[in-house]
């Protein structure tokens, strides 16, 4: 393939990578917030994302079945699905924390980690089971709300979906940033992240703050799930595993515990993956095709961690949330 057509692909690859990156970033925020406050890697977060995708899609399908979809503005429908999914996944996150993590808060780290993995299997199978029962197949394809697209130039098609995803992700990130830095609850969260015991002496209800962290992190994950379902169309109960792993990687890449790091790490990982998938094949004469894109992305992670073990934005433990 000649260089000209390689270059003409670049804008499209870039936009696709950016969309994917913003999705990673929103999910990575959930990992990083929980890690910041509890030093726990919440491996069930990928599954919370998946549950969000299913709830959003089911809400849309339900509205379609009831016939109120046709008269509805697609954006309104999307926001409705987002809202329901966020509330539900937020509550799910809080209850997971209450049932599976809080009783183990003073146990060795490994115990909590295993509990998290257990929750993740439970959620996968629960969704598989319910979807399998009600639909006889657990692939679910939701209604396509946003199918507008703009043909900017040869080799670049801007999809409405991509733009909406990037926009919503940006709004959520800015909102979270303001919340953590400007509100009383945000200050409490940062205080708990720094030192739980001292924070509790300052009349901060540590359990409440941790529950709030789980609520926000999980509802962001759920929102990302709804956006993912819109972007890719078809979802299944296993989408959370790989995406969760990648988002976790993004969080580590940016410096786990650091919110700015999670955002930048997510976007960087999405771009790297997309570029790797599109260009590795042609540049190596087809010897390393798109199937090696994860290898490419994870190699970059290893290299970054070799030189900066704390991640790009990681600081030596001081400020975490």
């Amino acid at each position: 393939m000649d260089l000209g057509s390689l270059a003409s692909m670049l804008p499209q690859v870039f936009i696709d990578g950016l969309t994917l990156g913003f999705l990673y970033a929103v999910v990575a925020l959930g990992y990083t917030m929980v890690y910041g406050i509890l030093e726990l890697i919440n491996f069930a977060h990928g599954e919370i994302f998946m549950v969000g995708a299913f709830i959003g899609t089911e809400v849309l399908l339900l509205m379609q079945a009831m016939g109120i979809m046709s008269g509805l503005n697609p954006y309104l429908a999307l926001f409705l699905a987002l809202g329901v999914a966020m509330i539900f996944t937020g509550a799910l996150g809080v209850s997971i924390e209450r049932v599976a993590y809080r009783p183990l808060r003073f146990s060795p780290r490994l115990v909590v980690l295993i509990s998290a993995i257990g929750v993740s299997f439970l959620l996968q199978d629960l969704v598989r089971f319910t979807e399998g029962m009600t639909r006889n197949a657990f692939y679910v394809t939701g209604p396509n709300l946003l199918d507008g697209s703009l043909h900017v130039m040869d080799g670049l098609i801007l999809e409405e979906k991509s733009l909406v995803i990037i926009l919503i992700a940006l709004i959520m990130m800015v909102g979270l940033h303001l919340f953590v830095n400007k509100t009383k609850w945000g200050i409490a969260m940062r205080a708990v992240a720094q030192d739980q015991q001292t924070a509790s002496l300052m009349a901060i209800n540590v359990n409440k703050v941790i529950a709030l962290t789980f609520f926000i992190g999980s509802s962001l994950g759920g929102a990302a799930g709804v956006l993912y379902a819109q972007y890719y169309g078809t979802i299944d109960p296993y989408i959370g595993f790989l995406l969760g792993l990648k988002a976790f990687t993004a969080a580590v890449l940016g410096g786990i515990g650091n919110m700015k790091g999670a955002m930048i790490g997510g976007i960087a990982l999405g771009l790297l993956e997309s570029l790797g998938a599109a260009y590795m094949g042609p540049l190596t004469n087809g010897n390393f095709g798109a199937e090696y894109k994860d290898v490419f992305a994870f190699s970059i992670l290893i290299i970054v961690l070799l030189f900066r073990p704390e991640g790009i934005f990681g600081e030596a433990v001081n400020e975490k949330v």
Partner: protein
Amino acid sequence: MKKSGLFMLLVVLLSLGLIATGCSTTTSSKENVIQIATQSPLSGDLAAMGDSIKMGAQLAINDEKETFKKLGFDIELFPQDDQGDAKQGVANTELLVSNPNVLAVVGHLNSGVMAPSGPKYEQGGLPVVSPANTAVDLTEQGWKTYHRICARDDVQGPAGAEYASKSLNVKTVFIAHDKTKYGQGLAEAFKKAAEKLGMQVVSFEGIDQKEKEFNPLATSIAAKKPDAVYFGAMYNQSGLLIKKLGEKKYNGFILSGDGSDHKDLLQIAGKNNLKKTFITSVAGDATRTEKGKAFAKKYKDTFKLEPSTFSSYGYDACLVVLNALEKSIKDNGGKKPTREQLNKAISETKDFEGVFTKVTFDEKGDNKTSDVFIYSFAEGTYPAKYIKTISAANFK
């Protein structure tokens, strides 16, 4: 931490319960019970296809139950879930081989699961009739117990290539596959035939079987603008690729194999993106024949579901087994045949007319009279519209 004590007790009770129910399902040999096992994915990504095979076989058993009752035997279906996973498939195989009631197996959807299980069946002398394995080398291993009713990749791939070249006038083609034994085998067979027919292969790429992100692949296809794309993969992935190709405004033909022959393809890909999509399939269209229509109606009445082509594969494969079983019971003087006797009868199947397939096994276990069918998704209906039949004999 009082609660966790109670919780632990519950966990222990629950696991004891599981163990107890696990034990109660193990069976001992019963003289007049014959079990036909199915092996297909009943959970996981490919459960929709695996379920169809199981239900097809179930229907065949229901149909023939009376015949065997008269001979003094109870036939039962013994469905197994191989999860489309080689490890699980082999583990199930070992259980089946050691179960004296199981005389034959209908199954394995995935060639990649059949391959490691094959030697185990061979050791246990347990005959297998596969409804859907298309990988070429499965019948080149010298296994005496292995049979399949469908055409191989080296027929299906070239049939697709021939259709692309001669009927669609395709000159350049982008080939991709899912790196499985099935997908890659099919893509390679297509590539070889395409090159022979003078088509230019602009790229040959693999993508992981579990991949869901098809933007990069679709973008590079759209940039290269080939006349056609050939994708050797299952419907869940080909659907996603077709959707993304539509969104990237790719305007050429899209071809795929029997793995894409599934009703969910319509939803996953979106009907508008399927206008120029064709598939090759090894199963005939149920709705074109009277027998097929009757089957479809019966299937719908029994399971409240539309049959897919995999249900018909499963049905016919199971009928082949039952037909041979009846014969071997008679040959054995009305007594329960051994696996060896049944295997011999299956291998000797000649000119058997199933609902969809005609079956005559050659010495390797391939079906001599298998055909490949071309279908079009242009109208956005399932089953896809039948276009033409290409006889397997053309490529031997």
